[in-house]
């Protein structure tokens, strides 16, 4: 079977020439169940709808921030409450939309960026409301949380194995940090020391020790992995 236009020989059962599209003029020869030499399995296609959704979310959030700004300027002639609203929306965007623009998200970078953005927002609130709690309380608190989350994420990502020890160590550190946080609370707001932190230390240390023991006892670790893998 040949194409009358190109002169090339065609596979049996072909309905039209794949080069020029000329229909094959022997309809009796068309085989309904002609052999297809390629697999019918298609690979997963790339999802471009995600970027459309992200663009839409960005546009909506931008519009909401703009509306807040215009309303506030019309009402007060300056940036009053709209500053909180706009930065709040910006923080929401950084937390919820920004990471999804990237096909491969590094959790260490994005958790760091999210917490730094939170710190910036708290600083704005502190300055705008005339508070004196940022440097002595909010900054160390956000700093501790940032270090802990970035540290444990980096260990999870780059250290092969030892997950149970990392998790155990993380919980013990969180417990230790509770005392620090209560200390910052004490020097900023004048509250008493050791009201709640010792309870938290005890609970977190117990959880941490459990993970470390699970790391040492292999059957226990395997059991936990089998039951709780995700």
């Amino acid at each position: 079977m040949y194409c009358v236009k190109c002169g090339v020989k065609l596979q049996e059962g072909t309905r039209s020439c794949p080069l020029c599209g000329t229909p094959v003029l022997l309809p009796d020869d068309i085989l309904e169940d002609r052999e297809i030499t390629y697999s019918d399995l298609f690979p997963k296609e790339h999802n471009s709808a995600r970027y459309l959704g992200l663009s839409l979310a960005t546009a909506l959030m931008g519009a909401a921030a703009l509306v807040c700004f215009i309303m506030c300027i019309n009402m007060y002639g300056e940036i009053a409450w709209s500053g909180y609203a706009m930065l709040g929306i910006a923080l929401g965007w950084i937390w919820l939309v920004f990471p999804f623009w990237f096909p491969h998200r590094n959790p260490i970078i994005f958790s760091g960026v999210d917490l730094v953005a939170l710190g910036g927002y708290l600083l704005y609130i502190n300055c705008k409301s005339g508070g004196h709690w940022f440097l002595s309380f909010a900054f160390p608190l956000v700093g501790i949380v940032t270090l802990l989350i970035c540290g444990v994420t980096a260990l999870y990502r780059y250290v092969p194995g030892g997950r149970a020890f990392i998790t155990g160590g993380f919980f013990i550190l969180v417990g230790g940090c509770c005392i620090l946080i209560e200390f910052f609370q004490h020097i900023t707001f004048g509250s008493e020391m050791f009201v709640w932190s010792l309870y938290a230390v005890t609970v977190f240390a117990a959880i941490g020790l459990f993970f470390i023991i699970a790391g040492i006892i292999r059957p226990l670790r395997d059991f936990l992995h089998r039951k709780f893998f995700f």
Partner: protein
Amino acid sequence: MSRKEWFRLDTAALIFPAIRHHNWNNVFRLSAEMADEVDPDALNRAAADLARRFPTFFVRLRKGFFWYYLEKLEKPAPALRDFAYPLTYMPAKELRKSCIRLFYHENRIAMELFHSVSDGGGASVFFKNLLVRYIFYKYGVVTPPQGDIADIEAKPSPEELEDGFYRFAGPKPMGRNEENSYRMTGTHDDTGFKHLVTGILPTDELIKKSHEYGATVTAFLSGVMAESIMKLQRRRVPEKMQKPVKITIAANLRHIFPTKTMRNFVLAVNPGFDPGYGSYSLEDIVRIISHQLAVDLMPQTMSGRIMTNVAPQRNPVVRLMPRFIKDMAMSMVYFSVGERKGSINISNLGQMTLDESAAAYVKRIEFIIGEQYTYPNNCAVASYGGRTYINLIRNIRETELERIFFSRLVSLGIPVEIETNERE
């Protein structure tokens, strides 16, 4: 815990991780049609044997601070059922797991390889060994280790693992100055589907016709392709704005320099002509290409061009740059210079031969290369069992080039049979 085995990328391989783009990278494919339905277990056993004999193939791409490197896989990933179209995108996530894919579909065995691992020449040797080993497990037929077929029990020789570019670099680098060429365009297929048209020609008639024109098969096919692109350009571009038509031919340096390396050892040459100067017949074009190839493929010329690529790697400042800066620099140079010098790639593996004992089980061998990032068509050629398979791949909908090219071969008296992966 056993020590991880790893390999530096060879000189040609360095570019491919750097120029990866969203939905595109350099992957090529070899496939064989067997006499019977493929047994995936036998294929996996054959792959496991080859992983020991050819350690640079079953690898994954890893990042160092200064360079990428290939880390040997503990065991090859099992063969998968083949996809509906060849050379589906191999994303970075996959390259971190494996740079090679093995497929099976009915009677066909296929292998897709990221170009950093090897070139068509090295991969064809590997693929023949894979087929021979598969035949051993499936049919119990032993093929003697001679020619390209390796002794499976032997250890890989250092020559097989070497970076040939370092060994054969000349004393003086050669300039890269070249005129930009005509680029074809078309309606891009956003689905990612790779359209494939395979032209099947009798090899003896193709050789006979090539000799009538006083050329090799590669030079002759490049001439027909250049003439087809010239006709296409005439239809689309005003006469005074015609650009040179150049064919990027992948030259297997193993034919020029004595090495058995299984890594990349290939360089592109861009013979062509400028249709702006007047009308050229097919005889003229084939003659031009043959003469340019004769000059470009001289060992002296090639060693100078090799040195051009090796010299930056020897520069201590370049070596100490972090990998991401090297990536940016290589990517910029490649897309602003490298991809602008050719209108289409033609990669001809030549005659693929197997020992009689194995040849009885292999009906057909094909070679397919992916399209370039900035031009839509590419061409790969391989001959086996008296037939030559010319695979024209494209990511656009138009088939104009394919039609002009194959109908020109028909008009020259070479019968062409066409196959395609299009769904009607």
